């Protein structure tokens, strides 16, 4: 058996070390060793996007990344989206806009939309559809997912504006979320 390697990375802001065979896929490390079962295994063939996580400010399919490639990486999963017990704007919006039915694709959808809105805070519908095209949903027909991303973009924009108007403490989200 190929020698196991120690890999250290940040998971939702917390440092973790794992000892893995080189062939272990990131999705398996997250789910089976680190008990982060938010990222789902849909197809395991790089198509469906249910396993999407945020890796060094990129949306990636964690079924197509080796854990040994993540040395020193900064990884955010759906578990890292909420802050201090409050849902992320995207999570609220998916709930309010009925952006899910069975929910299986949702962690991947939210995690992908998180990066999309970081890069493009005010996307057009077309940009949302193209930006989310690596995530498959077999329930919703996508319409409410698009609406949810649009609603979240508005919420995030309002949150950016609010502190300036009322001088309240900034709820602005850091680039890398840290767990409460």
């Amino acid at each position, binding site marked *: *058996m*190929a*020698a196991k*390697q120690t890999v250290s990375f940040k998971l939702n802001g917390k440092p973790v070390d794992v000892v893995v*065979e*080189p*062939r*272990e*896929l990131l999705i*398996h490390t997250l789910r089976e060793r680190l008990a982060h079962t938010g990222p789902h295994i849909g197809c*395991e*063939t*790089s*198509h469906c*996007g249910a396993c*999407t996580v945020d890796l060094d400010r*990129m*949306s*990636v*399919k964690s*079924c*197509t*990344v*080796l854990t*040994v*490639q993540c*040395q020193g990486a900064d990884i955010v999963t759906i578990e890292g989206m909420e802050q201090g017990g409050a849902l992320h704007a995207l999570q609220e919006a998916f709930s309010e806009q009925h952006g899910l039915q069975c929910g299986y694709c949702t962690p991947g959808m939210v995690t*992908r939309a998180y990066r*999309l809105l970081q890069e493009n805070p005010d996307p057009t519908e077309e940009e949302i559809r*193209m*930006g*989310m*095209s*690596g995530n498959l949903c077999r329930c919703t027909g996508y319409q409410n997912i698009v609406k949810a991303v649009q609603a979240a973009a508005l919420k995030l924009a309002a949150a950016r504006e609010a502190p300036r108007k009322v001088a309240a403490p900034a709820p602005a989200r850091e680039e890398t979320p840290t767990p409460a």
Partner: protein
Amino acid sequence: MIPREFEYHAPTTVADAIGLLHQLGEDAKLIAGGHSLLPMMKLRFAQPSHLVDLGRVPELKGIREEGGTIRIGAMTTEAELINSPLLQAKCPLLVEGAKLIADPQVRYKGTVGGDIAHGDPGNDHPALMIALRASFVLRSATGERVVAAENFFRGTYDTELRAGEILTEIRIPVPAIGTGACYAKLKRKVGDFATAAAAVTLRMQGNKVQEAAIALTNVGATPLKATAAEESLRGKALDDAAIAEAARLAMSICDPVQDQRGDVEYKTAMAGEMTQRAIRTAAARAAN
């Protein structure tokens, strides 16, 4: 869906990567973005004993212009191509092509060098590079050689890359001002390979074609340079008859494999249609 066991190596310089290839021999495989190789390893179509990861070699990254040539490090990702102001301004064909590859997640990881070196005729960069008259820098322990894109692809998964060689850089002559280009790709859905696609660059002089380059994706064992179609256009007025003739000549070199995307006749016809569309769009984008 777990790959066979292998040893993992992560060199930080090209010299170290080449050293590892020599030391490990034929059982070693280079991994770039991993979005072709890892799926093949998971299906056990590929079972290398050693994986040499180029992901931590900074000298293989980056896009720059030097003396009329655009130089792109082989490990530059599709997302980096798309977001490059230099390419947007001076080589928009590559930006247009990269946007049609796979999906956003794959484009964060997939690399231009991996797409080329994999030798898959379904990949898009090979035809784009032929149409752009690009060349590839191949480095080994004994030095460097430069191979023109049109001479690089030998067969399905078979390229000019020799054992111990690494594709380090892509060189593209900056297209002359006024060059029009287009990549027309027919695919069934986001993320699919092309049913057929055509990459075209055109320089016009009034209504006459001064220079044309045409290359086809996924309608043969390699990307195809449609030489006869290019020659048929040169010096001619670009009317419907000339475009139809170029498409007919492009179709005459197609030799696609029948699969779920279509039979031979359909794919060949679509290669002709994509050629026509790419020529028309490239001409509309060209400055007269």
